[in-house]
């Protein structure tokens, strides 16, 4: 996929820090997502990738810094403006987050009904169309989420996110917990969505196959607890084809899935632990 014009940042995080009580998850993050591009955010578990997505859509407010959408600070939006903003986003949650009490049809139709976007006849048409796009047969419309497989739930989640016609799609670990074939199906759907809807995309993932398939640009976050003092939390920001040749060895290790450095660190911690205990005594 080719990169669109470089300067038109649709989403921008400026010096964003996020703390939960005394635990800091993100620190001084500066990141731009350009209009029309698909950005993949990778990194170890617990490095703040999902928090980043929730900051972008305004589900969380940063402890410091600002998140800007089309140059507007979303922390300063009032209730109605925030609703309007969120309707420009589609969010595929990690476990799909389908509403258990509603059928698949009602799940997909939810946004359209709640915001009176269409009449019931049009809604039925849109739901059928979206389900078809994600490769689900019409029979699933009457099923409850509990009756679906993991892959089907992800696809219904995607159909629900797409139903409101978003400008920006946020994907939280879209292939986690799926078999390799279903993962590829989801990757294809992401790619297809980005192409047909010309949506801007932010994909949080551990899966390098997803990165290779859908990313225009990759950002790698690193857990704060293991950062060197003064170091940026973003270890890599660039095109996917150059990530393996990054000068930072931690990037290459993550991409190749090598445990070497982590194992050495764990060994160091194990040997350091008795010393620390003695010092405490």
């Amino acid at each position: 996929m080719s990169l669109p014009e470089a300067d038109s940042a649709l989403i921008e995080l400026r010096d964003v820090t996020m703390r939960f009580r005394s635990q800091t998850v993100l620190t001084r993050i500066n990141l731009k997502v350009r209009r029309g591009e698909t950005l993949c955010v990778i990194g170890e578990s617990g490095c703040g990738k999902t928090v980043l997505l929730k900051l972008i859509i305004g589900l969380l407010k940063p402890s410091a810094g600002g998140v800007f959408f089309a140059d507007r600070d979303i922390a300063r939006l009032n209730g109605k403006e925030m609703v309007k903003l969120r309707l420009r986003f589609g969010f595929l949650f990690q476990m799909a987050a389908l509403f258990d009490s509603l059928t698949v049809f009602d799940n997909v139709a939810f946004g359209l009904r709640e915001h009176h976007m269409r009449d019931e006849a049009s809604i039925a048409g849109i739901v059928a169309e979206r389900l078809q796009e994600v490769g689900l047969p019409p029979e699933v419309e009457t099923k409850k989420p509990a009756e679906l497989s993991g892959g089907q739930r992800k696809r219904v989640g995607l159909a629900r996110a797409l139903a409101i016609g978003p400008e920006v799609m946020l994907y939280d670990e879209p292939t986690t917990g799926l078999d390799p074939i279903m993962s590829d199906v989801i990757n294809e759907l992401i790619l297809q969505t980005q192409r047909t809807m010309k949506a801007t995309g932010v994909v949080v993932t551990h899966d390098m196959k997803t990165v290779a398939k859908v990313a225009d640009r990759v950002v790698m976050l690193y857990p704060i607890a293991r950062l060197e003092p003064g170091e940026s939390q973003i270890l890599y920001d660039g095109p996917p084809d150059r990530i393996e040749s990054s000068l930072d060895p931690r990037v290459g290790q993550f991409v190749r899935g090598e445990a070497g450095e982590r194992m050495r660190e764990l060994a160091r911690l194990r040997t350091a632990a008795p010393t620390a205990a003695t010092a405490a005594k």
Partner: protein
Amino acid sequence: MAIAASTAAQAEEAPSTPIHRLGEQIFDHVSEIGDVATFATLTMVWIGRRRPRWSVLVPIFYAIGVKSVSVVAITGTFIGMVLAVQAYHQFNMMGLATRLGSVINISIVRELGPVLAATMLAGRVGSSMAAELGTMRVTEQIDALSALGTNPIYYLVVPRFLACVLLIPLLTLMGDFMGVIGGAVVSTQIMNIDSYAYWKHTRDFVETLDVFAGVFKSYFFGAAIALISCHRGFNSKAGAEGVGRAATEAFVFSFIAILFLDFVIGLTWNNVYRSIWPQTESLL
């Protein structure tokens, strides 16, 4: 270097002194009270702003109201029956057995009916709401609602609040009725108290205002159950343990709130009653 950074981060995360921990506990409790107050205010704001759709309201009204009928009916009936059994011998020894109706029925409609019906509902409805909303929280369904531009308080809390506030008084009335019947059956059919005298004394002592006082309290009990249970569910921690704890806390805190409100409303009502009718006895 990495180890040093890690140790520093851990030191930042863990409070190091007892004073630090005490401060954190106090801060947490004050924040919690503020959080509940904000939650209640937002619920009221949303009630005034927009009515939930019937398709959302009806299933919740059914689950909270209709499905609680049997629990409240059984509780009410047995309260009346047990009161009759326990009080009969004392009253009979004093030759006041025919007065049993007034004692049983006034106890039921003023105090035991509303409080025990609310307690049963806190257990049945409150825990269930907290567990349901807690599961929605940990499976990100509440975040999904927000992401779809729907306010979770409007969509999840307002219907439950309305159902509790509107239906718990009705259930209380039904519990009162069943208690009155249960007490009357045991008194007149098993203890062989004269039916005419039983009902006459009841009519002499139990007034409409007594029934109203009980029902009046139940509105507050319903509101407390809904707000506390929904708040616990919204703030549930992750995992089965977190959801289980939210459900337990919903019942325990609701129960404490019911007893506290019962006391406060009783006291306030008595003061108001005495200030209006200074020569009369207190109502509650």
